[in-house]
């Protein structure tokens, strides 16, 4: 009995040491792979609950061990704890998304402000519906209208811009060039009034970047109204900024300002795509844009403002209908005033705007197309690009699509995306994120689940599980011992 007592005693004293050694080993993660899952049945030490609570249902039980939580309003967030420094993280999510055309996952990244997210799709219905032949690898899918390439590697080595290539959610590290582009000194003028914040692409090749904006402040609200014109290069670095201060009229009883002009003239720039941001409130009206550049395409938002609603401030407006060349797959239209209620022509279809402050959606079957606004005072939104005419339209996002819409000029689609797999009535999909630019606070990563149209469509998304797998280089024994000694030193 004494012998058994000694054995039991040794076991009792050794067990905590063995447990601690195992936990330490797991935490250091010499294999380079660590996986954690949150199933809504009970809290996970690594993955937090989804928040904010007011956008979510309580966890709902499906069967003994299966629960889900419903997202009623987007976006929602969760955080994951990092035990070590990892290189990348793969998130797999089990979900149901009956309504929304796009459901995506975002990772908070380091940027100019706190709200920077790198998004990757989990469910993109326009891509899922693509009925072309496809080749898949672990993280990429290539869809081809006609089978030309046998492997994705051969596609990446040999594709040219002229083949009608679109890239979605993947960095091909290939600069966008327009073949046969001819620069010139001729100044083009766009005389349509646009209101508030806008972003547009332009393209230069052996020429200066020249823009002149005619600006007026309507002064309908109290306070200063400033315009910042920012220029970004193809890598999204801000290379130039110019500020136009307030017109000096601060009261909402003041008249609209007289025209003022902002000119940007930048020489010796590298050939390629540039983005120009007109950063201002809706008080600022851009009455005219003059440029030496051939191409000018607005990104995601265009607010047409030539409408009698503003004739108290601007007496020289042209109220003619305005036509827009658009490559947006799902268009959203809204007006803020009764004078903007109208029938809008979208291709050969008509959409009636009969209420103010309400977003009207239109799914486009064939892209690109012409949108004609009869009365303007119309906010046009969409995941894609707009131009004032076909000649000034170009799409530098073909190598970096924000969303995909099948069109005649696209023959190949390469995407960092797989169609979600269906398992027991739930969809499962995952995406892998590099963590080198991730925002890490208190050793935690922040993630966002988003579906841009969900709130307007009153859609719901159900989440059944969230699984995260962290990856880093496996450790050698030397690294393991060095890390262990460091850890002990830290404690001492």
């Amino acid at each position, binding site marked *: 009995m004494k012998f058994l007592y000694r054995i039991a*005693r040794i076991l*009792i004293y050794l067990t905590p040491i063995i447990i601690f050694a195992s936990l330490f080993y*797991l935490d250091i993660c010499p294999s380079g792979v660590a996986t954690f899952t949150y199933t809504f049945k009970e809290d996970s030490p690594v993955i937090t609950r989804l928040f904010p609570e007011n956008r979510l249902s309580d966890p709902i039980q499906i069967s003994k061990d299966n629960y889900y939580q419903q997202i009623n309003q987007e976006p929602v967030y969760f955080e994951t704890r990092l*035990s070590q420094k990892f290189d990348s993280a793969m998130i797999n999510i089990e979900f149901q998304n009956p309504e929304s055309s796009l459901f995506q996952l975002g990772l908070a990244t380091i940027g100019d402000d706190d709200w920077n997210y790198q998004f990757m799709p989990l469910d993109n219905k326009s891509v899922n519906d693509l009925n072309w032949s496809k080749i898949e690898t672990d993280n990429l899918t290539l869809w081809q209208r006609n089978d030309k390439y046998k492997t994705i590697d051969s596609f990446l080595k040999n594709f040219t811009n002229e083949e009608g290539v679109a890239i979605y959610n993947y960095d091909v590290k290939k600069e966008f060039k327009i073949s046969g582009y001819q620069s010139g000194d001729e100044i083009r003028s766009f005389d349509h009034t646009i209101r508030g914040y806008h972003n547009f692409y332009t393209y230069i090749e052996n020429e200066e970047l020249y823009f002149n904006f005619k600006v007026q402040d309507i002064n309908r609200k109290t306070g200063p109204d400033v315009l910042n014109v920012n220029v970004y290069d193809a890598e999204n670095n801000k290379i130039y900024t110019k500020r136009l201060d307030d017109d000096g009229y601060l009261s909402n009883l003041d008249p609209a300002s007289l025209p003022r002009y902002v000119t940007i003239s930048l020489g010796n720039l590298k050939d390629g795509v540039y983005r120009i941001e007109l950063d201002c409130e809706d008080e600022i009206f851009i009455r005219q844009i003059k440029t030496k550049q051939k191409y000018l395409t607005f990104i995601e938002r265009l607010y047409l403002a030539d409408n009698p609603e503003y004739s108290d401030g601007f007496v020289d407006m042209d109220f003619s209908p305005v036509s827009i060349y658009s490559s947006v797959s799902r268009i959203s239209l809204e007006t803020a005033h009764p004078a903007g209620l109208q029938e809008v022509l979208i291709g050969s279809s008509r959409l009636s705007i009969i209420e103010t402050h309400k977003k009207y959606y239109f799914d486009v079957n064939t892209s690109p197309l012409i949108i004609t606004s009869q009365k303007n005072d119309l906010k046009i939104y969409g995941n894609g690009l707009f131009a004032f005419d076909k000649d000034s339209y170009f799409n530098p996002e073909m190598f970096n699509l924000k969303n995909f819409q099948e069109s005649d000029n696209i023959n190949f689609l390469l995407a960092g995306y797989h169609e979600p797999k269906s398992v027991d009535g739930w969809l499962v999909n995952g995406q892998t994120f590099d963590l080198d630019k991730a925002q890490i606070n208190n050793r935690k990563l922040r993630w966002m689940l988003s579906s841009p149209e969900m709130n307007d469509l009153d859609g719901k998304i159900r989440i059944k599980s969230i699984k995260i797998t962290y990856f880093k280089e496996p450790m050698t024994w030397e690294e393991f011992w060095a890390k262990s000694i460091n850890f002990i030193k830290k404690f001492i």
Partner: protein
Amino acid sequence: MMSDNQKYLIKIINDLFLVSATTFFLFYGIEGIKTGLISNYFDLNILPIISVASFIILIKISKNFESLDSSGKFLNQLVFVILFSFLIFFGLHLSILLKIFVIILFFIISIQFIIKTNK
């Protein structure tokens, strides 16, 4: 008189109680220094459950510590009081069931001690 087997059993359970309680304090401390090192992979509720369960068994089979010497008796009671205080103080992180269990148990043991002391 107690048999040898009973004495050894009491010693084993006594060790189990002391080791599990001490390990709980240590792990809790380590968790405070590096969040996640313990809790990412191990449920910290397990250790106080083992401590409390072994303490009850110990009381039962040692007839309220009568078979332990006075220093062992004191050590056990001290560790248990510290463990209990700790659980109540940091109890927010423990499961509700465990909290209720510990509170009820503490009351029972306290009453037993009071009755025994007043005899």
